[in-house]
């Protein structure tokens, strides 16, 4: 009973880190969403406390908002003590989630007709902690209006009432006044946030190139990177995605520039850790193509892990499934001979072996798992070599990421920057003897999470 619970929790953590409800290489949007929603219902119904505790971990925003929504929708099933703790964790977590997702969550709560006192309190408190309510009113006008209307909250700023729900001839707040003027004055558009200004530019039929040049100071960092990338400032995994989106010829021409940017990003992500001898098995088979919404995501994670491990390790042996030696020119092709590559990695006599792969071992099927199993039982029973499998893709049939074998811990990975923390978590799960340890660990994480806030 205990070990099942612990397994379920780990399965959920992996799923919540990797699943985004988007199409993947092997499964469609419908399959991903169905599988994920079943998993959430299962966890909520059976392990409400652990489900709540996941909010304190490094899961992605998509799953965090789903957890919050389901906890609030089913508030009637919780005890008062549970509700109190949930409220604390939810409030803290929502402050870390991107604002557009939080507003979308409020919309979903409204559609689900969830309107108890606690929900209203959470929404009110979140809006109250927003640094600039007028800015939110302009950028997320519809969503803020719905949220205020749903919770019967007085707007935090006294001009927001007329702005959102009525009209006024003149506003004292600068950004609201700019928004009003942008309806008829073109110069005012360039002082509004990018997404709002885009709509007005279309209305005034401004030339796109001209518009983008002049709006550049108003874009958020991410928006600017989408239009024109600045590779010296990008985080590692995003930079790896960018590199993979360039054609091979361009990557070859800009080799020095891109490699130094990747190494710099890896050094920033490394922190103070230092590992000994590391061998990595990196998957660049055809299935790392991902899908149209997650283009080459698994390969980007593998590439980012490659550079991060190069920075972390004293001695590093990279082994790509396609046999390539030049990672900068990587592209998804070939089959997945994980078994053979793992043998190559083990033969280089490392201290650690890291496998970054979606687990669809097919040359031949199941060989990787068998090699690892026999290695653990017969060749290295004292566990001198530590092996961890990092998997960036959620598998719909397993309700988890695909595992190679029970004797090697598998963790879901979203960004390569989390690699040291994930490997630590993997080793913790390997030495796990019971549910008590896991619960203690989660309680500790939750406590630290709330204290940081």
């Amino acid at each position, binding site marked *: 009973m205990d070990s099942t619970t612990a397994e379920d929790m780990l399965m959920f953590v992996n799923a919540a880190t990797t699943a985004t409800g988007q199409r993947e*290489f*092997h499964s469609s949007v419908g399959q991903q969403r169905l599988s994920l929603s079943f998993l959430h219902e299962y966890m909520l119904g059976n392990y409400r406390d652990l489900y709540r505790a996941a909010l304190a971990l490094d899961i992605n925003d998509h799953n965090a908002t789903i957890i919050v929504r389901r906890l609030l929708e089913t508030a009637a099933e919780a005890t008062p003590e549970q509700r109190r703790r949930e409220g604390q964790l939810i409030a803290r977590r929502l402050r870390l989630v991107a604002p557009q997702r939080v507003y979308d969550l409020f919309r979903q709560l409204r559609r689900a007709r969830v309107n108890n006192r606690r929900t209203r309190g959470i929404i009110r408190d979140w809006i109250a902690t927003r640094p600039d309510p007028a800015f939110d009113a302009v950028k997320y006008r519809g969503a803020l209006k719905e949220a205020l209307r749903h919770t019967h909250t007085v707007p935090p700023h006294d001009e927001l009432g007329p702005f959102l729900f009525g009209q006024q001839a003149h506003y004292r707040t600068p950004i609201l006044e700019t928004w009003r003027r942008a309806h008829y004055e073109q110069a005012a558009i360039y002082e509004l946030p990018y997404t709002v200004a885009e709509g007005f530019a279309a209305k005034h039929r401004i030339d796109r190139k001209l518009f983008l040049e002049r709006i550049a100071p108003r874009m958020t960092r991410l928006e600017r990177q989408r239009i024109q990338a600045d590779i010296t400032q990008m985080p590692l995994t995003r930079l790896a995605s960018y590199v993979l989106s360039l054609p091979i010829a361009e990557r070859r021409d800009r080799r020095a520039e891109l490699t130094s940017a990747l190494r710099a990003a890896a050094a920033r992500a490394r922190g103070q850790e230092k590992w000994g001898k590391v061998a990595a098995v990196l998957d660049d*088979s*055809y*299935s790392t193509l991902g899908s149209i919404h997650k283009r080459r995501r698994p390969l980007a994670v593998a590439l980012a892990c490659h550079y991060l491990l190069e920075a972390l390790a004293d001695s590093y042996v990279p082994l790509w499934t*396609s*046999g390539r030696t030049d990672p900068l020119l990587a592209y998804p*092709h*070939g*089959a*997945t001979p994980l*078994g*053979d590559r793992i*043998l190559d990695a*083990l*033969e280089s006599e490392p201290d650690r072996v890291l496998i970054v792969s979606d687990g669809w071992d*097919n*040359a*031949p*099927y*199941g*060989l990787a798992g*068998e*090699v690892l*199993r*026999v*290695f653990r*039982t*017969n*060749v290295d029973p004292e566990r001198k070599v530590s092996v961890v499998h990092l998997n960036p893709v959620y598998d719909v049939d397993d309700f988890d990421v695909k595992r190679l074998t029970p004797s090697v811990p598998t963790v879901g990975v979203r960004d390569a920057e989390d690699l040291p923390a994930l490997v630590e978590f993997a080793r913790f799960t390997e030495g796990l003897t019971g549910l008590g340890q896991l619960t203690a660990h989660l309680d500790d994480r939750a406590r630290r999470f709330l204290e940081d806030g």
Partner: protein
Amino acid sequence: MKLDLTGLTTRPAQVWGGVRLVPLVRDEPVTSLRLHAQIYGQEVGVVDVDPRTYYTSYIPHGFVATWTDDGTPAAAYGTEIMRTEAPPSHCMPLRFHRRMAKRTDKDRVRFLPMNLAIEGYLALHFGGPQVVWEQWSQRAISNGLSPREEEAYVGSEIRGLADALRIFEIHPGQCGMLIYVADALAAAFVVPHPDDYRALHATAIEDLYGELIYHYATLSMPVQQFRAQLSGSHVRTLADLRAAARAQTVAWREFHDSTMSAGLLAAHYDVRRVYKMGEFTLSRFLPTFQLKQENHIGELITDHRGQTAYLKTFRLSDAQSRRGYLLTQLANHDWHLPSTAADLGVTEAQLGLRMESAGFGSLLREDILAHYRSVSRERSPSNMDRRPKS
């Protein structure tokens, strides 16, 4: 003769649903022959195979083979798309081709894959009875077997095949594939060069597949993956582990070559040459039409040693095998029904009815056929005639 797939190694299969795809990898690609595709579109293709015979089918693409005589690498072209303006919507679009295999340049020949093989099957004894025995109808004497038609399903109709092909990860150096649906061999496809294979892998979705394959795909459950299993008993070091892993690969290869593909590779075929291209020969083959066995038709290009450079096969359904079997038996006995029947161990009437159920009823004279029917009814009265004796 048998098919010779030397130079091609079997690699582990990839399974998706009920479809198992087994890759074939060449150690050394054949560089002096290259294939590329010409895409035609969705029009119905009409081919004049000889001055008096037309062949009509779904012909979405043709293959163009380029070769060199002296063993140097042949030129590789990409896929060509033959565009035509869109016809008015009330017309049925047709595209006319001259000959199944036609020379387009000094060292290039365009042939229509899959259709080359099927036409060979349809043309089997197409002339009909050579001797005017009394049982054959006027139509059989004057027109032979014309019109001779068969049905097949396009790959996109085969449930699960499109997904399996999309998800398949192509091995480096892969030059061929064997497609198994519900573990029945549906088709084999081999090309000379890995780059050609990459370009032509997706054309498998436009190929024709027999009725048997269609039914197996629709009705089958997902097939089991063959999982590698290592027994840890003799493993102490990494070298032992690697040897055990290698043994698994060898075991799969041997199992596949001896058991799964035996229906195709162990059978004997009647090979007819279609075109000679330098040191290569384009031919098509027919099986011996043994009932209760796999019967594959296909086309292939062999080099001077008889090794396969290009292969494409089609699996006949049971009905199609039966038709081929009957035609072959009749032809062996100069179209004399009584001696054919005696050789098969049935009466003439039974043979006549078998021909009718196979679809060749129009070859027999009406009155002869009616006689056969009444004779069989006499010998096996229907249950309606039997009344309980009171």
